């Protein structure tokens, strides 16, 4: 039995019987680029190569990093992006519609079996849909855009096998922070990590996306989840084309049983990762009484519809504590609209939240809301490296939207179960 990673790579390369370490050339089904690493970086290389893009229908461009563009420099980047999109007749252009890793699946671009690359390090998010997707730099992206293909070294698979049900107020984010602690930031060794087991099968798609997204934090190339009925229902609702053979990708095997790691959801409490690494995680109640200034619900990792819903569950009928601010940047315009219709945005507003644009915002250390010197933040984002979200002296704790919201209510880092009386 071959692994899911090998099956996907085998299909993309046309080569059967792949061994770990085999170098293959894969045909790219979809290439995603954004305003920061995209047109402005690849354009000069494509010009040097004297090439146009290989297939304008297989390229998706998203503006999300320098949004809203408030300086001359960032306005110039957006203008360049728009011109490049027009010149290259890219129809799949999502201008200020939300963060790339969320926009891509919600518009039906990701389906099981695809081989995709993204010009962003959190591109493994696509693995949640049973697609092989990974992040590459600008030089490589230019190569892909010119040729439609890329080389890849067949990776080994590490299987993160989860059993039992998550407790209430415990999420995929908590699972991920626990995995970061267990195997470390480089623990994935650029292999394909696959999330499997009954806990995963019971997660909705946007929660699965959080796991695949942060496969990047585990040092993996890809973060795969085998497709099931939940995947297919999501893809169909998003208007994507489900391949007839999608069941062929229902594979959960490893080459070496030593690469199968067992986790028990029943033993998992809400997690918080201390500055400045996601692997500094521990049970949330170990951090109680830690003060902070800003609570942030944002990013592709932690501000999707399901994350906004979680925050609202905690904040309903409550107010945030004096002396702290709560900033919410919904990950996509669509998710924000849905949350508005469902009354979620109203709950957040009544609790005292401020809203920011549907973009990377503070997560990328961009914009006037970035953290000031010495500020402490509890955040639903993926990374808390030193200085990432603002000033060098600022610091970031990572947690789930439940935990961020509960902390906003008490003004101290808080296990959400305490606020909810569980």
């Amino acid at each position, binding site marked *: 039995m071959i692994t899911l990673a090998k099956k996907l790579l085998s299909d993309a390369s046309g080569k059967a019987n792949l061994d770990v370490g*085999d*170098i293959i*050339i894969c045909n790219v089904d979809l290439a995603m680029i954004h305003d920061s690493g995209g047109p402005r970086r690849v354009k000069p*290389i494509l010009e*040097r*190569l*004297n*090439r146009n893009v290989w297939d304008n229908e297989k390229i998706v461009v998203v503006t999300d990093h320098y949004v809203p563009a408030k300086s001359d420099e960032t306005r110039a980047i957006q203008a360049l992006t728009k011109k490049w999109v027009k010149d290259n007749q890219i129809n799949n252009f999502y201008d200020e519609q939300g963060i790339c890793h969320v926009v891509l699946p919600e518009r039906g671009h990701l389906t099981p079996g695809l081989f995709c690359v993204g010009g962003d*390090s959190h591109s493994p998010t696509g693995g949640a849909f049973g697609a092989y997707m990974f*992040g*590459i*730099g600008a*030089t*490589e992206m*230019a*190569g892909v855009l*010119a*040729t439609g293909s890329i*080389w890849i*070294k067949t990776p080994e698979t590490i299987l993160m096998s989860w059993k039992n049900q998550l407790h209430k107020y415990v999420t995929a984010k908590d699972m991920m922070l626990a995995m970061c602690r267990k195997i470390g930031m*480089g623990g994935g*060794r*650029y292999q394909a990590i696959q999330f499997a087991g009954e806990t995963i099968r019971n997660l909705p798609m946007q929660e699965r996306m959080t796991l695949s997204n942060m496969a990047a934090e585990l*040092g993996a*190339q890809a973060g795969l989840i085998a497709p099931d009925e939940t995947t297919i229902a999501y893809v169909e609702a998003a208007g994507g084309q489900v391949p007839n053979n999608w069941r062929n990708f229902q594979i959960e095997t490893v080459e070496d049983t030593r690469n199968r790691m067992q986790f028990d959801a029943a033993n998992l409490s809400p997690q918080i990762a201390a500055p400045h690494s996601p692997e500094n995680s521990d049970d949330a109640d170990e951090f109680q009484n830690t003060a902070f200034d800003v609570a942030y619900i944002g990013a592709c990792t932690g501000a999707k519809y399901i994350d906004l819903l979680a925050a609202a569950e905690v904040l309903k009928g409550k107010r945030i504590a004096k002396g702290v601010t709560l900033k919410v940047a919904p990950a996509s315009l669509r998710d924000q609209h849905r949350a508005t219709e469902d009354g979620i945005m109203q709950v957040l507003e009544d609790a005292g939240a401020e809203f920011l644009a549907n973009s990377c915002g503070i997560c990328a250390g961009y914009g006037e809301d970035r953290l000031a010197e010495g500020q402490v933040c509890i955040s639903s984002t993926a990374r808390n490296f030193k200085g990432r979200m603002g000033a060098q002296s600022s610091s970031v704790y990572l947690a789930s939207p439940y935990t961020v919201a509960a902390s906003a209510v008490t003004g101290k880092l808080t296990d959400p179960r305490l606020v909810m009386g569980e």
Partner: protein
Amino acid sequence: MPRLWRFEGTIDTDILAPGFYMKSPLHELARHCLEAVRPDFARSVVKGDVLLANANMGVGSSREQAAEVLKYLGISAVIAPSFAGIFYRNAINLGLPVFTIDEKLMSIPALADGAEIEFNFDDAELQILDNATCIKLIPLPNFLKKLILDGGLVPHLEKRFEQEETQS
């Protein structure tokens, strides 16, 4: 005569291309390459020298410059029992030879820091001249070999497109 630079500990992208100098031009950044562990490295390294590092070489961020500075300084090959994935990709795409070595060979005394060496890219062999030892590295697949010989991905594609044009 080219020499072997052997590094202990884990060499991450911040040690190779320190964040503080990332905004500087490449030649400036290169002056600070590995200075946290070997302050004399950038000054003393000569063209053709080979770098030997421990497992998970180049772990850290995706910055291409971590590989680019080594190439700029004239390193003819980076050898390690394993590489961080993005560093490995970046090195090859920028035309810097990277070779994997069997972990067991790392304890051979001849693989000493400062040893005079001769490196053979084609045969993936490292000759230690002082005591006439030949270390066999894990050969690169032909495709990657070609990519490196062409000078990296962009020159490789330039060459390929030229050939396609003359053929058509």
